[in-house]
């Protein structure tokens, strides 16, 4: 048994020695299982893929994924990184969530070119990295955006202010995808955003704002809409090794377009988490909420979109067990309550035949193992 790693090391070392640069291979894997507790309850775990949903039958697919990352140092300043991800619900069809070159422009300034994660919220860049957070998945009431990466450029500037260490990030890029809820094609031509992160010992803060002044939505019937959109997020984390407190508030604004119409209702979401580490166990509790705000100016005949607002809240209780330094086992129970008012179905058919699946109440039980390697 001892021989194998050495043989592998030998095999791995020889081709690398022939190259001018160093390559490191890492990855992570999450294997999850879960189900809703009552018939007809559905619980979507991945906003980018509505097939990733728990139903009233045990399934191992929705929370199961793997990622392999290769990172090569080309020279002192330049490195190239590719992260391949595969999701069980997509039969592990390989996607690139990250594919970029990193160039160290100055000591404190890094530039990335290529495909990066769209960093609109606190956990957007580490959404799949289950090992790095306490839950099985970041609260889905808030992490509900189906576009997760973009092609573009980002610049990170590191600074310190007394005992505070900070990173300021600016990014710009384009991305597109199909909204799994409406089957509309959505194109972000030029999303521009800024992030500020500050940390001081156990305490860290993050704020971000992202804006695209003209996204294009093409419905299945080929009708096209344009509008500006903005994502804001503010979050705080306290983690002293024992006590864990984490909260985030986000606002998605569907702004007035050229025709003076606000096509969607704005959306506000938040979560608050508390956990306490006892040995290798971290029991935790989370409240989360998603609400549409009545800002849309769209009228569907006799009804206005702003009178039918989605309003969902959830609580989650769970335990993370760090049974190995590189592996955690998690068990979670989530209860979601749907207080939404929905458009009368006849009107909804008019608006868009494939439109909006109600959230519904749901109770979900899930377990997962997260490993980094």
């Amino acid at each position, binding site marked *: 048994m001892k021989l194998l790693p050495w043989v592998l090391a030998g095999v791995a070392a020889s081709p690398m020695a022939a190259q001018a640069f160093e390559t*490191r291979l*890492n990855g*992570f894997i999450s294997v999850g299982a879960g189900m809703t507790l009552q018939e007809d309850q559905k619980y979507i775990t991945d906003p980018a893929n509505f097939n990733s949903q728990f139903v009233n039958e045990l399934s191992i697919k929705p929370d199961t994924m793997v*990622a392999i*990352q290769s*990172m090569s140092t080309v020279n002192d300043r330049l490195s190239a*990184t590719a*992260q391949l991800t595969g999701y069980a619900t997509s039969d592990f069809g390989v996607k690139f969530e*990250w594919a*970029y070159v*990193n160039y160290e422009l100055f*000591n404190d300034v890094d530039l*990335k070119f290529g495909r*990066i*994660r769209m960093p609109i919220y606190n956990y957007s*860049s*580490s959404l799949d*990295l289950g*090992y*790095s957070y306490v839950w099985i998945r970041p609260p889905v009431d808030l992490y509900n955006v189906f576009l997760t990466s973009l092609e573009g450029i980002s610049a*990170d500037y*590191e600074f*310190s202010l007394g005992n505070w*260490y900070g*990173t300021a990030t600016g990014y710009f890029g384009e991305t597109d995808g199909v909204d799994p809820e409406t089957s509309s094609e959505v194109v972000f031509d030029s999303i521009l955003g800024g992030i500020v992160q500050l*940390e001081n010992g156990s305490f860290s803060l993050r704020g971000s704002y992202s804006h695209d002044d003209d996204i294009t939505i093409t419905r299945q019937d080929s009708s096209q809409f344009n509008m500006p959109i903005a994502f804001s997020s503010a979050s705080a984390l306290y*983690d002293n*090794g024992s006590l864990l407190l984490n909260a985030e508030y986000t606002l998605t604004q569907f702004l007035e377009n050229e025709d003076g119409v606000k096509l969607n209702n704005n959306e506000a979401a938040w979560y608050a988490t508390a956990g306490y*580490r006892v040995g*290798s166990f971290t029991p935790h509790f989370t409240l989360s909420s998603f609400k549409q705000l009545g800002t849309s100016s769209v009228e569907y005949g006799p009804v206005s979109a702003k009178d039918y607002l989605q309003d969902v809240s959830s609580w989650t209780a769970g335990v993370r067990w*760090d049974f190995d*330094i*590189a592996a955690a086992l998690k068990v979670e129970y989530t209860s979601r309550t749907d207080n939404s008012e929905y458009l009368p179905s006849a009107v909804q058919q008019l608006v868009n035949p494939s439109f909006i699946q109600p959230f519904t109440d749901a109770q979900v039980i899930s377990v997962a193992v997260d490993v*980094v390697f």
Partner: protein
Amino acid sequence: MNLVKYMSSALTALMLWAGLSAMASADLLVIVNADNENQISVKFVKNLYQGRESRFEDGTDAQPIMQAEGSPLTDLFLDKIVKQKPVQFKRLWSKALFTGEGTPPEQLDSDAAVIAAVMSNPGAIGYIDSDNFTNDVRAIMRIKTE
């Protein structure tokens, strides 16, 4: 007779245990290259291993070196200097690695390997058991084991 035999083997075991724990209580030393004359504070070392600092005062690129994950020496270093639990530290660097924020410190498997790396690299910094210290490197901090 049997009792004496039993007692003496128990005594031997006890002495062996005492000897081992005496050996295990050698101190931890933080070491840098012999030519590195920077003033280095505990806070700097902590921030360096957490990825918040990358350079010594004189501008040299600092290259932190870790030893084996989960070893008593590493756990002591993380506890006393980096002020993090091993799992917290692993989580910090996993997140950095997979979100493009940085690469974890290099990991070497023995005191000898750390000393060799620190000798050959002016910016390297590592930690070793004081029993294996040699004058080829400069010790900047000592942590007593309990």
